[in-house]
């Protein structure tokens, strides 16, 4: 007896979806790292206690810079890259 519903994912297709998953995670993982850092070391965020802080202390907040890098990567690079990866995978070989 043969069941047409259960079959193994071809290895190549599985590798492609793994790549897509990995790329889609880069941005969110980077953002999460920044947020975890901010929670662990809240004193690195001068925006939480802005009184008497100079301009530069308010501009350069390391955990937020990490979050920013993750967001920019996810929106500018990650999203279009995933679309291209899907387009390439969908294209007939």
């Amino acid at each position: 007896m043969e069941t047409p519903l259960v079959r193994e994912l071809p290895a190549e297709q599985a590798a492609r979806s793994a790549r897509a998953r990995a790329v889609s995670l880069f941005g969110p993982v980077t953002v999460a790292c920044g947020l975890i850092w901010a929670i662990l070391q809240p004193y690195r965020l001068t925006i939480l206690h802005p009184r008497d802080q100079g301009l530069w202390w308010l501009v350069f907040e390391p955990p937020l810079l990490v979050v920013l890098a993750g967001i920019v990567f996810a929106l500018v690079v990650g999203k279009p890259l995933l679309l291209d990866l899907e387009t390439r995978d969908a294209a007939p070989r």
Partner: protein
Amino acid sequence: MQPHAEMVHWGFAAGILFVGLCLLAEAIVGQDVWRMRPWRKYLWPGLAFAIGVLLWPVMAFFTNSSIHMYAHGSWAEVAMLAGGAELGLVHGRLKSRWWRLTWPLAFAVTGLAFIIHEQNPWFFARSAFLHHLLGWTFVVGAIAPLLLVWRPRSAALQACMALTIVAVAVMLFADRDVAPVFGHLSPLAGPQHR
């Protein structure tokens, strides 16, 4: 009213982290997919070149000794050289694979400059520790871009180079002007701030 040196390091760390993420993504999806959009192939080489350009004002305004000036100047030169060569390669103007030697050169020069220009021992303060660590990371990390000259499509080597750059960004984010490292802070380093 200049920002502190540590703030400049954090700013560069953010740019370097972004470059590392781009390199890692390229290593995973492959060059063919990465270069499907014309702007994307110029992205990280352009950023590397821009980081080199931005190191010049750092050299001019943030160096308090000749050796610091030479170190920052050499980083600016090799980052511009490697970024510019990569731009030429991805655009097709440069054909020879030997231009890729500019990356291991940049790593090696950067690493040696870090090690040489740090005058204090590892546990003097956090910045001294990070200078030594960054230096040796770059020197050892130069192996991956060196091997990429002969194996330019190796995903493993590209990932190694990318992870080295991400590690450099993490170290730069950890930098403080005067702070202890693993509980060590020399009294000669001055009072810890914040």
